[in-house]
């Protein structure tokens, strides 16, 4: 490589990614439905559960945990799920529909940077949601921070990766903003059921719990509940999450269209 070619690189300035990220963050701030759903609703449910005494009684049917404790990982999975499956593919599909991705593809900046910025912004919202869930339950409801922090963070990273992959796959197979809303809802609501959001899985026939372990949000609950009480997460939910991340990541990459 000679001095001339080094002096004239064809890489876009790094400031460009910062500018894209800032604009995506502004959009989340100005259209806060996703943030409200993920952070506001989970906090609200947590507070409601926390004030009901019956949710603070340990139950043998819940492996000696209180219903409140059972709901902490469920609300984490709810926050990650709704952001990754609804509020990630929504903007991406509309950007493609509006020609925003196409317009970017004729600038020095790759259109994939706006996708990366979306992932970064949604991941931030997820982390804020998880943080608030813990701050509220530790500060007001006598809970502890995750006993096995390393295990918890590993579970969290795999959970986010798995759900992002599914969200990107939804964006890949959907053409219009109208369709993406429908598809996201059809996928999200059954997954929320199997996470135990409406009714804890442990209180259902055991076959339901078995199914739940193989669903993405059920696996998130399984992977995050153990490190909360000091244990390393069991292998099977981690493998389930990794498998979702790989398979749907591959499918998303294979079928995603920029225009």
């Amino acid at each position: 490589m000679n001095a001339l070619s080094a002096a004239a690189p064809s890489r876009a300035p790094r400031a460009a990614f910062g500018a894209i990220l800032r604009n995506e963050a502004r959009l989340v701030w100005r259209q806060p439905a996703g943030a409200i759903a993920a952070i506001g609703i989970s906090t609200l449910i947590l507070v409601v559960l926390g004030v009901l005494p019956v949710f603070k009684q340990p139950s043998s049917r819940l492996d000696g945990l209180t219903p409140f404790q059972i709901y902490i990982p469920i609300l984490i999975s709810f926050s990650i799920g709704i952001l990754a499956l609804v509020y990630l593919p929504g903007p991406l599909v509309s950007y493609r529909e509006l020609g925003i991705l196409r317009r970017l593809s004729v600038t020095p900046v790759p259109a994939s940077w706006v996708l990366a910025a979306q992932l970064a912004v949604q991941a931030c919202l997820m982390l804020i949601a998880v943080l608030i869930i813990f701050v509220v339950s530790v500060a007001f409801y006598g809970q502890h921070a995750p006993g096995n922090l390393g295990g918890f963070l590993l579970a969290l990273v795999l959970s986010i990766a798995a759900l992002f992959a599914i969200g990107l796959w939804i964006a890949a197979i959907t053409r219009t903003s109208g369709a993406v809303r429908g598809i996201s809802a059809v996928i999200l609501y059954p997954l929320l059921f199997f996470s135990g959001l409406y009714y804890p899985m442990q209180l259902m026939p055991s076959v339901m719990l078995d199914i739940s372990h193989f669903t993405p949000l059920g696996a998130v609950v399984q992977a995050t509940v153990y490190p909360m009480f000091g244990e390393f997460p069991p292998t099977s939910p981690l493998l389930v999450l990794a498998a979702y991340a790989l398979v749907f990541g591959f499918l998303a990459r294979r079928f995603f269209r920029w225009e």
Partner: protein
Amino acid sequence: MSSPESAVEVTHLRKSYGSVVAVDDVSFSVAVGEIFGILGPNGAGKTTTAECVTGLREPDAGTIRLLGLDPRADGKQVHEIVGVQLQESAFQAKLRVGEILGMYRTFYRSPADTGELVDALGLAGKRHDYYRSLSGGQRQRLSVALALIGRPKIAVLDEMSAGLDPQGRREAWRLIEQVRDRGTTILLVTHFMEEAERLCDRIALIDEGRIIALDSPAGIVGRARGGKTVRFVPSGPFNSRVLTGLAEVTKVEHDGRDVVVTGTGELVNAVVLALHAAGVEARDVRLDEASLEDAFVRLTAEHEHDQGGQS
């Protein structure tokens, strides 16, 4: 490799969608600093040509070079030096004009002055407005601004003045001329005659995917008409041979009181002088110079006729 003085070099470009041939063996070359128009009816293949030039579409055959670079193989370098305004591109509803411009500005190494650009396009008062609150014309102007914000060596503008009112159109034209004067080569896709006539140094007239004429606006008009037409009322009778003998004249016809002379070059002078020498005065002299629009209609009709004859 292309010669250094040509900014855009398109050779034997061909592109079909399924069985529909959109662009069929199109070749042209645009000199540095030129405003080159691609003019044609809807569906003629103008946009497809522009999309191939900007690297958005891969040609089925043919080569494209932008200052020697291949828009697909050398994509990144090409995008640094080529500014693009696409038809039907939109932006996020809840971003402000200034935020969109500011973001695109960071994409380029030595961007244009945003203030100057928004002033020239009449967007100065709109920098703090959300994109969704802009009118169609204002969105179009923003789109033109974004094509020019990287100080491109080549700007490809597809229906730049669509949705602009006459005032906005003139502002946009002035800006394009200024940008050209600073050395940017402009490839202008349009179906708007006045724009092509006013701005373009040369025009490629495209119909059904083929170039049917490539010349200066005046040249295309001349070719379509076979020249210009002078109409006058003679002060008295005269022998037609006075005029048919002139080199400039191709045809002399009578239309009621009017005499209609078709020809080329300095037709009016030649006709008036010859009549004067014959002792006849030409009154009410009118020069009909065909507009580009006439030429366009005539050339596309001829092209269609040729096609019909062949099949």
